[in-house]
């Protein structure tokens, strides 16, 4: 999760007309998909869950498209290019996490829920308080993630289009925001899903192409590529070993362990991933979605290894310097240019433009998924069930969801513009930490612990959420972090403000156990017979799918 702000690019701009054309094509294709999907969206189930009519393969691609953000595509390959092996550590947590989703969550959630994460809790708890809590957590996680993506989009797109200046970045953020609002309001889940499927296909194809070209340069000898990377990076064999980035001192090591925990547990609690399981007709298809997602995401991360080490091995000193200036984000695009024939060549320009367009499609698909998730939760949980107490019509509910998407999109744009000048790269890690500390305890307790009740759910969600947020607020990412070498301020607040006392940048190692503990204490200090009696029903429904929501047939 490298910072992608404050980047200045001075690359040659021969690829620019081509890149712009490809960007326009991506936009036109996604708009066409959205309009088409919008015409087929009639009921609430269509809007929230794409009619539950996607197949496992389609949803697997969409899940992968929803999950692999620009931070993983450009960020991880860039981190490997700059810090070697340590960049690879992220991708392993991101992948192993899917086993939690596969074994414990996906199928059971598909059978027991309807549109949102809260549905599954509301099955046996008191509706209004648990829906409010789950909705708060959904919106917080999604907004953190969204904000990081939007700010990244501003910097990235101007980087990829080689335009400079604040006005261009602001304009990019507004344009990305407007597009995502359009996808979500018009296309609903159906449109968003297809945008994610197209993006996943583009991302996989682009990555496979560059990977093969890079490996061909080394006659498919991986050891040679690693040797070249070690030599070219200037770090020698240490470049191929863990520790270059995270092994500085014990605090950094514990911090990394803390991050590793949040990554592996957080994925199964990310609301935008969870609601994807409602788009398929059966639990069996939900299982198949995750299996496809694991295959795609796993092969993708294996290829980022080649992209990262390949960039370190192949890029010239000048290009490598640009990668460093961009905090790694330019590693894949510049590598594409290199293997296409080098700067100034036609092949190089074409591949660079192609990878830039893939990165752009990636950003669009991820922000659309996040906006849809927040809007669904506001409309279905807060409006329909908390405010109208389940008496709203489907039509009203979908109208509110569309309005909420516009409002959330607008808020994201307004927050992202000033946030560009701030160090907010920590927000993605924080989103994972909140998901792992607040959502995962509540979901797992609800599915596997009969005694669990409303108070337990509220305590785990609010307790886990506030632990993670409060600890990060007093951590070095918010105040009191300066680069020891340059003296540059690396915290959110200006260098003059320092109220930091929590030593770790990642709160997971403390906040995840706290989330589980709060949920446990909340549960055993209250008795809720209804919740316990309803558990039998939940269990039968979750494991067998008896009485589960069915697909819509048009």
């Amino acid at each position, binding site marked *: 999760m490298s910072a992608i702000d404050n980047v200045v690019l001075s690359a040659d701009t021969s690829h620019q007309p081509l890149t712009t054309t490809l960007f326009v094509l991506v936009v036109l294709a996604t708009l066409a998909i959205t309009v088409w999907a919008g015409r087929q969206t009639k009921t609430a189930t269509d809007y929230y869950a794409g009619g539950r009519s996607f197949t496992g393969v389609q949803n697997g691609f969409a899940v992968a498209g929803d999950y692999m953000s620009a931070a993983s595509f450009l960020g991880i390959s860039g981190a490997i290019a700059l810090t070697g092996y340590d960049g690879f550590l992220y991708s392993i947590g991101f992948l192993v996490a899917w086993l939690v989703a596969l*074994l414990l969550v996906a199928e059971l959630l598909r059978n027991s829920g309807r549109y949102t994460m809260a549905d599954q809790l509301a099955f046996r708890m008191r509706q209004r308080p648990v829906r409010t809590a789950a909705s708060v957590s959904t919106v917080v996680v999604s907004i953190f993630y969204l904000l990081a993506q939007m700010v990244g989009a501003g910097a990235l797109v101007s980087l990829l289009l080689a335009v400079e200046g604040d006005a261009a970045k602001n304009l990019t953020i507004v344009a990305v925001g407007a597009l995502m609002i359009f996808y979500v309001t018009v296309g609903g889940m159906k449109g968003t899903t297809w945008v994610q499927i197209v993006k996943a296909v583009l991302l996989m194809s682009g990555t496979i192409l560059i990977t093969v070209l890079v490996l061909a340069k080394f006659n498919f000898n991986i050891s040679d590529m690693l040797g070249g990377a070690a030599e070219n990076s200037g770090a020698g*064999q240490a470049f191929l070993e863990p520790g270059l980035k995270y092994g500085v001192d014990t605090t950094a090591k514990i911090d990394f*362990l803390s991050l590793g925990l949040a990554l592996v547990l957080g994925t199964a609690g990310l609301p935008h991933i969870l609601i994807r399981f409602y788009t398929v007709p059966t639990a069996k298809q939900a299982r198949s979605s995750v299996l496809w997602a694991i295959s795609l995401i796993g092969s993708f991360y294996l290829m980022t290894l080649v992209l990262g080490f390949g960039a370190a091995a192949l890029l010239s000193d000048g290009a490598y310097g640009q990668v460093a200036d961009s905090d790694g984000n330019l590693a894949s695009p510049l590598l594409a240019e290199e293997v296409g024939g080098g700067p100034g060549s036609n092949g190089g320009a074409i591949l660079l433009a192609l990878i830039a367009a893939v990165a752009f499609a990636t950003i669009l698909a991820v922000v659309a998924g996040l906006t849809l998730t927040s809007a669904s939760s506001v409309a279905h949980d807060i409006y329909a069930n908390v405010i109208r107490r389940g008496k709203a019509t489907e039509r009203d509910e979908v109208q509110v969801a569309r309005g909420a998407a516009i409002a959330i999109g607008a808020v994201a744009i307004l927050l992202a513009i000033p946030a560009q000048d701030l160090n907010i790269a920590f927000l993605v890690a924080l989103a994972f930490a909140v998901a792992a500390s607040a959502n995962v305890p509540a979901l797992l307790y609800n599915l596997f612990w009969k005694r669990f009740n409303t108070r337990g759910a509220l305590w785990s969600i609010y307790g886990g959420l506030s632990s993670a947020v409060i600890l990060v607020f007093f951590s070095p990412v918010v105040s009191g972090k300066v680069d020891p070498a340059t003296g540059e301020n690396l915290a959110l607040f200006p260098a003059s403000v320092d109220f930091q006392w929590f030593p770790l940048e990642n709160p997971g190692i403390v906040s995840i156990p706290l989330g589980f503990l709060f949920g446990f204490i909340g549960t055993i200090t209250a008795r809720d017979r209804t919740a316990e009696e309803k558990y039998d029903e939940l269990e039968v429904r979750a494991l067998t799918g008896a009485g589960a929501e069915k697909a819509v047939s048009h």
Partner: protein
Amino acid sequence: MVEQTTTQQHETYERIHASEDFAELRRRYRGFAFPMTVAFMVWYLLYVLASSWANDFMATQVVGNINVALVFGLLQFVSTFLIAWLYARHANQKLDPISDRLRAEYDSEVSR
């Protein structure tokens, strides 16, 4: 869910819950999912801890420039793919037949 279950649905759920078949389904599901979760979490944490605290071990070269750290990392991919495949096989063979049967029972009783 939002709509309360009817008495008919409730009774069917309770009956299925008390059945021998369901107890077997739950036993087979948990018997696979729980120990496997513990196993992959321990395996993953071992890797994270080794990355931070076992530098010399991780730096050992295996073949050419390929060291233990890379092999260990790639093994995490292998184990993830393997567990996913094992679970899919287990679910298809051991879980789906029972859950299909119970779901059909539910559907025939409730729609009557």
